[in-house]
């Protein structure tokens, strides 16, 4: 529990909470981005440079922008009325608390077993990226290819849908 971890965790939690709580959808996305950036910083703090930068590149650079576009595309008109408080807020809160408890327990029990292990020697940072690459290209090459195929299919599907709409418009 170092000071930097505390600060980063606080920023992340605050960002995510604001993303849920703010009224304006665009503000929510911006707050969400702060949360993403906090998570990326946490990865970096753990020495996972590749994951951290990928988090920034993908989530801050792409997902946030995508969310913004989605909001712009769908929300044509602002809802002037404040969102009504959900009637089941108490039940929701209870579920959230239960999930948190389960997760906390899982992590805590796991952490004990980790602590039992001797502290691992710090992996040379240059190895991490290379290790990821090696792992992807050797051990996980089949899953990688499958994921790639799936994404390509999704991409083509998206293009087809978009083109169909354009034809309609003409």
């Amino acid at each position: 529990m170092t000071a930097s971890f505390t600060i980063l965790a606080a920023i992340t939690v605050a960002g995510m909470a604001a993303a849920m709580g703010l009224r304006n959808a665009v503000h929510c996305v911006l707050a969400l981005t702060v949360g993403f950036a906090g998570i990326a910083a946490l990865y970096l703090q753990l020495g996972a440079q590749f994951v951290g930068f990928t988090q920034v590149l993908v989530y801050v650079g792409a997902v946030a922008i995508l969310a913004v576009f989605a909001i712009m595309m769908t929300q044509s008109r602002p809802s002037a009325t404040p969102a009504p408080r959900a009637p089941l807020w108490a039940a929701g809160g209870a579920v959230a608390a239960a999930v948190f408890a389960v997760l906390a327990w899982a992590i805590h029990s796991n952490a004990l077993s980790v602590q039992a292990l001797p502290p691992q020697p710090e992996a040379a940072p240059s190895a991490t990226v290379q290790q990821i690459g090696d792992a992807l290209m050797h051990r996980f090459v089949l899953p990688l290819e499958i994921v790639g195929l799936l994404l390509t299919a999704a991409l083509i599907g998206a293009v087809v849908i978009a083109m169909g709409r354009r034809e309609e418009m003409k």
Partner: protein
Amino acid sequence: MSTAAFPAAVLPTQQIGSEPTSGPSTEQLLELSMGPQHPSTHGVFRMNVVLDGERVVRLKPVFGYLHRNHEKIAESETYLGSMPYTDRLDYICPLTNNWAYALAVEKLAGIQVPERAEYLRVIVGELTRLQNHACLVGFLMQDMGCSGTPLMYAFRQREMVLDLFEALTGARMMCNYMRFGGCRVDLPAGWLDQTKKVLQQFPRFLDEFERLLIGNEILMGRTQGIGVLSKELAVSAGISGPMARASGVDYDIRKVDRYGIYDRFAFRVPLGSHGDVYDRLMIRVLEMRESLGILDQAMRDLPAGPIVDPKTKIRGFRPKPGEAYGRIEAPKGELGFYLISDGSPNPYRYRVRPPSLINLTVLEDLCLGHNVADIVIILGSVDIVLGEVDR
């Protein structure tokens, strides 16, 4: 404002007024007011554009920000008193405005123009065409985002022509040069040599300009197939000038009317076949080359003699009752003045047929389906001057 995601930015269709002409009703349309302070509307012109994304769905031109009551003022002025006001119609080419007005009054009063004055009129008129077209191609490039380079080259050339105007008429833009039955002053000493020097440089500018941009892929991509004006629409909408000729309409008043002494000069009229922005640009470049030829011939053949009809009175000028319409091929198109005289010192009715305004009427037809970026260059290729549109 915290609740509003898009209070001002995106308006739903219902708020715009009428239904969009195309597209599904769920489309979000954006109504954009381009102008009157927009940098590319060539003055205080305004376009209310309805956009679907960046595609133009509707476009409504709004005129009148520069309305100066020109026609009504002219009806309370003497005939001569309107001459300086015509400078301010199309302030890029004052001399052709002077000429058209003088032509109308000469028709009305039956005044003969001495030969030397006719030659002088052709010389200054073609110089005006040169600088107007140079100016236009520069501005069109600027609208296309050229960071000012072609515009500066064009203005360098234009300044030289304006220097000539100043040496001859005393003013760079508000020349007030023509008089009924001729011109106001004769050429000062050395003016022809200076003009020859300027004209010798002009082909170099045109070559430079063509090397700089005409073969440029970006320019071709931006202008070819954009803002196509069909020949039929050009004829039925009364489009004139380079814009009509770019659409393939063989209509040049210098050839049709042969007013003045234009039948003495050998020149060709370039015609486009596509009617897009590229053709309108190129027609102007080609017309500049033709104008250079006319100027060469006119300066070669310039006779000596009086420059103004001595019988025409400068004060107390009262044409007999009647009406007349005088028109010329101004750089922007057919510029006409329609006058009714009731025998008094001021016209009973005075009407301008401004080429810019008539050419602008097809703007929406040219712009529909194109991008915001295209609106700007289409407007630029129409070649308007708001002083003339709004009068």
